[in-house]
């Protein structure tokens, strides 16, 4: 083992593809960190990536990452900060080459870039079916044969081991395909401290740390329901894990940044996207979130300890996606007086005109919302009896694209053929887009090996 640090500073600067690039830029600029993790994946991202790659063999990864790298790489190199990003999509090699081109363009050299792959099993489905994998939908129990012919992507969630290998090989930048969000921070912990993959309490601690920071500023005061207490959302600090070798850690942020790190800010994120808290399953460990203890240690520091984990299961989760029809959503702004009443009439007009054309949608495939009149909190918040301004949002979905296209033609005409005060049609006619549905399944761990590839630029 090389020289071990007493504690390692791991930050997360990107909670999802589309998060503010100021997060990583400011994490590097405003204080010390050792690792910068960046998460670019959502459930259906891989399907979009497969589509892009099928049109262009050099595409299929998160291009935002490359643009960000141009901004941050000189400073990261100067400060010795290593970057771990789930930006590889379904084409990590192309992402590596694009990152290598950035290294050259910036006049840097000696930068080691690694890919961690093995997650993409789209081309291995026949082989795995032959080996007995059923790919049953783990949420609904539905049969794989329902969707088999429509599958457009299939990726396994990898754990931290591939990232550890890449860091062990000296990578400055690690580009992953599909990995779990907590693996992005667990990887550097295992690498730095030499934790073993049967040291379940430590793996659990790293996983809890990863869960807390995986949505960036959501653990530093953003999205806190008692929001008036939070200062300076504009310059909110992104989270930093101060991890020690024994698995105890603190969540903090750079001094002087906005937001807060408190029991409440960390607890809020501990609850986020939680299922059964006693059995939080990852490829590396099963974590018991009811063992997590929190303690405030001065301003903007929360100590997290006591975490217990159990042996991981024998399975890995597959995230597959399939084409599932079409949808279109359009909206109009209805100005008052009597905006809500007029918006309801407008929605009714759309269905009547479609009925004239013999175009019908089932109730489950239609959606009408009157934004401004308690939509998100239907039945909870008070719906106003009337309103001076309402946004009418209306949408349909159907297997038949032509029906969806026909619907899309009936929204803008309301400006000149309905009640007065209808505007806000600048977006024009909405487009029918393909619905990409998500298919979660389990496969045996033994089928999957991660691959690490390192190049120096």
């Amino acid at each position, binding site marked *: 083992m090389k020289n071990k640090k007493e504690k390692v500073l791991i930050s997360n600067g990107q909670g999802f593809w589309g998060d503010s690039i100021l997060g990583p830029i400011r994490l590097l600029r405003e204080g010390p960190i050792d690792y910068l993790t960046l998460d670019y994946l959502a459930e259906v991202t891989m399907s979009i990536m497969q589509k892009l790659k099928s049109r262009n063999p050099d595409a299929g990864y998160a291009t935002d990452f490359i643009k960000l790298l141009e901004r941050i790489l000189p400073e990261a190199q100067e400060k010795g900060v290593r970057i771990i990003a789930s930006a590889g999509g379904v084409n990590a090699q192309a992402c590596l080459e694009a990152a290598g081109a950035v290294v050259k363009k910036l006049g840097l050299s000696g930068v080691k870039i690694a890919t961690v792959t093995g997650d993409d099993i789209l081309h291995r489905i026949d082989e795995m079916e032959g080996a007995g994998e059923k790919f049953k939908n783990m949420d609904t129990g539905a049969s794989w044969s329902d969707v088999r012919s429509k599958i457009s992507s299939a990726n396994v969630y990898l754990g931290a081991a591939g990232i550890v290998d890449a860091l062990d090989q000296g990578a400055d930048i690690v580009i992953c395909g599909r990995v779990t969000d907590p693996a992005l921070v667990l990887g550097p912990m295992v690498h730095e401290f030499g934790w073993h993959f049967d040291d379940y309490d430590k793996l659990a601690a790293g996983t809890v740390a990863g869960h807390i920071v995986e949505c960036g500023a959501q653990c530093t005061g953003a999205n806190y329901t008692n929001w008036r207490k939070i200062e300076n959302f504009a310059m909110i600090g992104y989270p930093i894990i101060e991890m020690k070798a024994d698995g105890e850690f603190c969540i903090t942020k750079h001094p002087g940044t906005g937001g807060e790190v408190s029991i409440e800010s960390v607890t809020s994120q501990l*609850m*986020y*996207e939680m299922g059964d808290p006693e059995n939080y399953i990852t490829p590396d460990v099963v974590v018991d979130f*009811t063992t997590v203890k929190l303690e405030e240690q001065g301003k903007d520091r929360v100590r997290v300890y006591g975490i217990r984990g159990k042996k991981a299961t024998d399975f890995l989760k597959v995230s597959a996606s399939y084409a*599932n029809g079409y949808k279109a959503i359009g909206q109009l702004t209805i100005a008052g007086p009597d905006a809500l009443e007029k918006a309801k009439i407008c929605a009714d007009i759309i269905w009547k005109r479609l009925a004239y054309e013999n175009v019908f949608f089932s109730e489950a495939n239609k959606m009408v919302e009157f934004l401004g009149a308690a939509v*998100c909190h239907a039945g*909870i918040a008070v719906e106003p009896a009337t309103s001076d301004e309402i946004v009418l*949002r209306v949408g349909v979905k159907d297997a038949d694209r032509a029906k969806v296209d026909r619907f899309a033609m009936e929204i803008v005409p309301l400006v000149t053929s309905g009640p007065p005060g209808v505007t806000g049609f600048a977006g024009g006619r909405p487009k029918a887009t393909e619905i990409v549905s998500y298919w979660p399944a389990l496969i045996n761990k033994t089928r999957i090996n991660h691959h690490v590839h390192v190049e120096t630029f």
Partner: protein
Amino acid sequence: MKIKLSEIAYARSGDKGDGSNVGIAAYTDAGYTFLKELLTPGRLKAHFKEICFGKVERYEMPNIRALNFILHDSLGGGGSESLKTDAQGKTHGLGLLYMEVEIDSLEGLKS
């Protein structure tokens, strides 16, 4: 006196397939005891009657004074299938904090 849960608790929510997860945490131990008694799955189901069309599951996290609920069938299909504005249940936590309850006193319940 009548209060909203937002006076004694905070919340966060997100998506879980075609359902949402709603976590609610009390500011104090007494608040957690109160929430644990009050917030049965049936009470949640009634509160979210125009949002949640499936069953409600509840989990306890006493270590952080929190309850975690899964509201099944509350996202209009979830993911890219949903036509709803809040397709991921991001606002369901705030929705729970609207709940009004009758209590004797706020003593020991506020942060």
